[in-house]
C-alpha cells in the first residue's frame, strides 16, 4: 500500500485516491464531543482545530492584515449598499431612542410641536430638516425593493445592478422632493 501511495504521488492525483489510507495515519486529536457533531467527520474537527491554531499564531506574531477598505475604489454598488445600511441604522436607532425619550420627558407631543413653532425658525431650515427625515425612508424603501428582488435572484448581473442602482437613487431623490414640497 505504501508503494502504491508513493507511486500515485508522482502522478499528482495521489490524495484523492489514497484518502482512506492516509486518514488512518493521522495523529489522534482529542475533540470534546458536543451534540450535533455526529454528522461531522474527524477531518472537519481537525480542520477547525488547525484553523484556530493558525489564527492564534497570527495574533501571536501580530501579523498585519492586507488593506481592503483603504485601497478599493468606491463603486456604485458598494456606495448604494453602504447608503442602505446607513439609512437603515439611522432610522432603526432614532425611532426607539426618540420614543423612549418621549416616554421620559414631560408634556405631550403637541407641546413640543408648539415649542418648535415658537422658535420661528427659517423655513429653509425646516425644509432641510424634512429632507433629512424623508430621504432615509424613501431611499431605504426603494432600495429595499431592489434587495428583495435579489433575494429572489432577480437582476443579479452587473449591468442590471448598475441600471437599477441609478434608477433607485434617482427615484429616491424624486420621491423625497415630492414628499417635502408636495405633502
Amino acid at each position, binding site marked *: 500500500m*505504501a508503494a502504491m*501511495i*508513493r507511486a500515485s*504521488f508522482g502522478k499528482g492525483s495521489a*490524495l484523492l485516491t489514497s*484518502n482512506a489510507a*492516509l*486518514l488512518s*495515519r*493521522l*495523529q489522534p486529536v482529542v475533540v470534546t464531543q458536543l451534540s*450535533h*457533531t455526529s454528522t461531522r*467527520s474527524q*477531518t*472537519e474537527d*481537525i*480542520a*477547525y482545530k*488547525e*484553523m*484556530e*491554531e493558525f*489564527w492564534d499564531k497570527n*495574533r501571536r506574531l*501580530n*501579523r*498585519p*492584515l492586507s*488593506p481592503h477598505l*483603504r*485601497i478599493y475604489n468606491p463603486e456604485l454598488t458598494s456606495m448604494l449598499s453602504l447608503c442602505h*445600511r446607513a439609512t*437603515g*441604522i439611522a*432610522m*432603526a*436607532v432614532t*425611532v*426607539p431612542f426618540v*420614543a*423612549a*425619550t*418621549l*416616554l421620559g420627558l414631560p408634556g*405631550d*407631543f*403637541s407641546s413640543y*410641536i408648539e415649542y*418648535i413653532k415658537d422658535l420661528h425658525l427659517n423655513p429653509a431650515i*425646516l425644509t432641510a430638516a*424634512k429632507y433629512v*427625515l424623508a430621504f432615509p*425612508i424613501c431611499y431605504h*424603501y426603494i432600495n*429595499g*425593493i431592489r*434587495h*428583495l428582488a435579489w*433575494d429572489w435572484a432577480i437582476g443579479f448581473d452587473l449591468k442590471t445592478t448598475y441600471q437599477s442602482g441609478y434608477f433607485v437613487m434617482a427615484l429616491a431623490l424624486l420621491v423625497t422632493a415630492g414628499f417635502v414640497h408636495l405633502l
Partner: protein
Amino acid sequence: MATIGLLRACRGKGCLFVKNSMFQQTLPTSLQNSLVTKHFSLTSVASSNAVVEFFRARNFRAKRGPFRPEEKRGDHKMMASTHWKIERVLAVSMLGVMPACLFVQGPIMDTLLSITVLLHGFWGVDGVLTDYLEKFVPWIHYPWYLLTIAGLAGLIYFNYNDVGVCEAIKMVWKL
C-alpha cells in the same frame, strides 16, 4: 473536503502530507523549501496604517473565525434560514404597509407601523452588530435589545396616551 482537511493537517510546518518520514522523503528539496512559512514584514501603506496600528497596539482581540456551526448557532433552536425567511416576509409586508399609511390612518395603522418598523429595525441592526461589532464586543446585543424594548414601550405609550405616530408625522410635516 477531506483532502483540504488533510492539507490543513500539516500544521503549517511546510509539509504537504502527514508527518510521516516516508512521505517527506519523496518530496524534492526545492519543493520543501518553498513550503516553509515565511515571516513577512509590514509594508507601510502611508499614514493610513496609523489607524490599524492604533488598534493593534491596544490588542483588540477580535474573535475572527473559524466558527464551528455550534458556536455560530448559539442557544436558539430555530434554523438561521427560517429566521431569514421570516425577515423577508416582514419586509414584503412592509412594502404594503408603508404606502398604506399615507392613505389610511388611525390606531390600527399606528400599531402596525410601530411593530413592523421596530421589528424590522431590530433585526437589521442585529445583523449589523453581528457583522462588525460582535467580534470586538460580544455582549453588544443586550444593550440593543434593551433599547428596542424601551422603544416599544415608548411607542405603545405614545399610541395609547398621546396622538399616535400617524398623527405625529402629520403634525411634524405641517410645521
